[in-house]
C-alpha cells in the first residue's frame, strides 16, 4: 500500500484505490492547431519534480474525478479540488 490520497468525498485512502490520469494539460484551443502544437499537447509533459496539478479518480470508492496538487518528490498532497467547471447541478 502506498501513500494516502485524500478523496474529497471519502477522505484519505491508499493510492491503489485511485486511477491517475496524470498532469493537467491544456488542450490546444482554436480551429486547427499546428501538428507541433497538437503533438506537444498529446505527448509532451512537464513531468516536474515538484508540485504537479493532476487528475485523479477514486475508482474503488465514490467514483468521482477530482484534481490534486501533489509534490512528486514527496508524494505529499497539498490540496485537492473539484473539477472546474464544476458539473452543473
Amino acid at each position, binding site marked *: *500500500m502506498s501513500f494516502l490520497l485524500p478523496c*474529497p*468525498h*471519502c*477522505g484519505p*485512502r*491508499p493510492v*491503489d*484505490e485511485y486511477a491517475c490520469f496524470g498532469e493537467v494539460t491544456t488542450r490546444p484551443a482554436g480551429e486547427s492547431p499546428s501538428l507541433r502544437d497538437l503533438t506537444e499537447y498529446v505527448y509532451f509533459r512537464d513531468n516536474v519534480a515538484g508540485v504537479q496539478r493532476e487528475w485523479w479518480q477514486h*475508482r*474503488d*470508492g*465514490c*467514483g*468521482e474525478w477530482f484534481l490534486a496538487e501533489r509534490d512528486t518528490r514527496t508524494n505529499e498532497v497539498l490540496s485537492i479540488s473539484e473539477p472546474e467547471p464544476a*458539473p452543473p*447541478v
Partner: protein
Amino acid sequence: MTELRFLSPSQCAEGSTASPLRRALDGAPEQVRDLSLQGVLELRGDIARVEAGEGEELVRLSPRRGFLFTPGDPFEAVARVRAAGVLAYDSTGALAGLALEGEQLMRRLTDLELTKLPAAGPFARVSALVLRDEGERFRVYVPQELGHDVALAVLDALAGLELAP
C-alpha cells in the same frame, strides 16, 4: 419514453431470476446470508433531493452519487425518485449482496474503517459498498459478476477464523 424496465429483475416473470451467489453460498454457514436480490437503486444528480421512504436506506457517496436500498419494488422506487428530479437506475441486478457477522471477519477482507461506514472501497480485492448494521452485523455489495469469487473468499476467511464448519 423508456422506463428502463430491462434493468429491473422485479419486472421479470416470476421464477426467472436467480442470485449470482447461489452456487457459492450453497450450504454456507449462517453467518453469511445472500442479499443479492434485495432492491437497490443507483442515484445520480442532486442526492439531497432524494427522500428515503419507509424502510429505505440512502447511502450518499458524493453530493451527486449514491445508492438507495429499498424493501419495495425498486422499479417503482425509480419512478418515484425520478419524479423528484434525480436520475435513478435499478441496480438490483448489478450487485451481489452479502450479510456478514463479525468485525474480525470484516477486517480479514477490507481495510475500510469499520467505524466509518457506509463507505465504498475494496473488499476481498474487488470494489464494494460496505454498510454496518447493529452491533457486528455488516452488509457488503460487490459487482455481481465478481460475487461468486467474493463469496468464496468470505467463506475462506471464515474458515481461517475457524468459524465455519
